[in-house]
């Protein structure tokens, strides 16, 4: 069935948008940097840098407990940041728990909900395309609880098989399905709505790792059907040191607290305490206030561009990169072949050149790509690749930068004689 292509356009030219990101004017060896590593961390616009700087210059104070004017201002800015992030992902602010990053968000679920609900003989179901942040916490949980960790296979085109999901769920032991919304290794956009529906029908809960999704496409956490939705700030052009766990308020209220300390308590008795309302219950200690303010500015920046338009631009660049990289001799591209089915990244291997060497030779031309071990062991074995190179794109990237990548790859092939 043909679906009318989205025609959302960015409100400003990519050149104007690029000018908002000071780092993009850096040069190495006389060459302008081509930053193709936004899936690792995105660059920051002036608006985010300025929000953080202005917070420290004008408004710094501790939140939640002081009566003075500066504290009120700090609180207003920090909670304003929460509200802006909430609005970007379609959630009420009270359901946005600020954590350090997506890893901490997932670990929060592991230490609170999962410890109470995943027991001996139960199954945590993840997939072969997960980031290690959505693998290792579940390995630790399963070891601790005597539960079993199972992996959904990824097919040759980087997709999950929903029939296999049904089979695993039919076993009746799955308590949690934890998968990436968009894979950081293959780029696959997973059918999260269907996954959630099937998991719920089988009595399992769903955690989605939205670290790659939120920066690049419209996300409404309720529409995903997830019970838990984790994402990080620094990949969505915000600061490092702040991320988000979203869950429905009733669920957050049922869960035991995570870290104990100040700010998360209602009353402290000699031998026990009662908990603050959510999300404060999960935010012990002085939070990353400036980062919360900065993340709010990032959410505002993205909202002003329009996530439909951000997505449309990135699909265009990704489609171009897929075409050009695939056209090189001896190159294998991993993941779904169609840019419309994937996030804005391309993982690839060049026969005869290790990705680390590719990244080094790209670096000589000021083209930043990622090389490394993105895959979990089972997938690595099956694809037969020890490591991959990855180019990833954000709203500030252009097809001209893809051309520079291709030039660098051609040069690497020349040097290695392949």
């Amino acid at each position, binding site marked *: 069935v043909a679906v009318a292509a989205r025609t959302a356009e960015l409100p400003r030219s990519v050149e104007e948008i690029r000018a908002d990101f000071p780092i993009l004017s850096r040069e190495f060896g006389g060459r302008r940097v081509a930053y193709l590593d936004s899936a690792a961390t995105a660059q920051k616009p002036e608006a985010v840098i300025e929000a953080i700087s202005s917070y420290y210059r004008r408004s710094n104070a501790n939140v939640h407990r002081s009566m003075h004017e500066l504290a009120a201002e700090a609180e207003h800015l920090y909670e304003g940041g929460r509200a802006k992030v909430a609005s970007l992902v379609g959630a009420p602010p009270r359901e946005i728990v600020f954590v350090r990053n997506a890893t901490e968000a997932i670990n929060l679920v592991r230490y609170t909900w999962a410890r109470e609900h995943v027991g001996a003989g139960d199954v945590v179901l993840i997939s072969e395309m997960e980031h290690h942040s959505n693998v290792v916490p579940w390995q630790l949980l399963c070891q601790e609880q005597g539960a079993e960790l199972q992996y959904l296979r990824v097919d040759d085109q980087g997709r999950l098989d929903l029939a296999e999901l049904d089979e695993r769920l039919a076993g009746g032991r799955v308590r949690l399905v934890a998968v990436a919304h968009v894979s950081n290794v293959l780029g696959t956009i997973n059918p999260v709505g269907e996954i959630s529906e099937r998991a719920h029908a089988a009595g399992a809960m769903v955690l989605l790792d939205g670290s790659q999704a939120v920066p690049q496409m419209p996300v409404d956490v309720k529409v995903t059907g997830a019970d838990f939705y984790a994402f990080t700030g620094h990949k969505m052009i915000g600061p490092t040191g702040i991320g988000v766990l979203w869950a429905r308020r009733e669920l957050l209220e049922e869960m035991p607290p995570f870290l104990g300390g100040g700010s998360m308590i209602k009353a402290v008795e000699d031998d026990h305490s009662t908990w603050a309302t959510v999300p404060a219950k999960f935010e012990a200690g002085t939070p990353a206030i400036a980062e919360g303010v900065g993340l709010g500015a990032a959410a505002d920046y993205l909202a002003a561009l329009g996530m439909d338009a951000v997505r449309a631009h990135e699909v265009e660049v990704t489609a171009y990169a897929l075409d050009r990289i695939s056209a090189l001799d001896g190159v294998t591209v991993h993941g779904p072949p169609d840019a419309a089915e994937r996030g804005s990244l391309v993982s690839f291997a060049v026969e*005869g*050149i*290790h*990705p*680390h*060497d590719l990244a*080094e*030779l790209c670096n*000589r031309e000021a083209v930043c790509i990622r*090389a*490394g*071990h993105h895959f979990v062991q089972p997938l690595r074995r099956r694809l037969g690749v*020890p*490591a991959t190179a990855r180019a990833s794109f954000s709203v500030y990237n252009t097809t001209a930068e893809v051309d520079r990548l291709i030039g660098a790859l051609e040069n690497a092939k020349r*040097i*290695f*004689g392949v």
Partner: protein
Amino acid sequence: MDQLYREFILDHYTTPRNFAALEQRDAEFQDRNPLCGDEMGVHIKLAGDRIEDLRFHGTGCAISQATASIISDELKGKTVAEVAGLDRNFVTEEIGIELSPTRLKCGLLSLKVVQGALLGTDEWPSGTPEQDPDASEVARLRNEI
């Protein structure tokens, strides 16, 4: 001509010397470079406290694999005490080029596994940045930033 990826290195990368298993061995060790997943293992046969024979096996980038190949012949005949004294300089002299901080672990992985096999250590050879921060390199980075 690319300094790092010159013919000498690429030749050792594509046709590495002393890469195989040793059926008769007295020591072995393997490890990986956590940065990029380069894997390297070594099998060693001793005559007294001297390396009589040694073979590497592994997968990884050109620098990690070529370095193992290049230093392999040089290591044969060395005593355990001599191997203990080897550091970053040994490797960079053998391959004939300084390695940038980002590639140093690639270049030192083969020496690390040899020292691991013979000395029972899991430390990186001295001269690795985290082990022994190179003051001049730190200064250079400071100036650049």
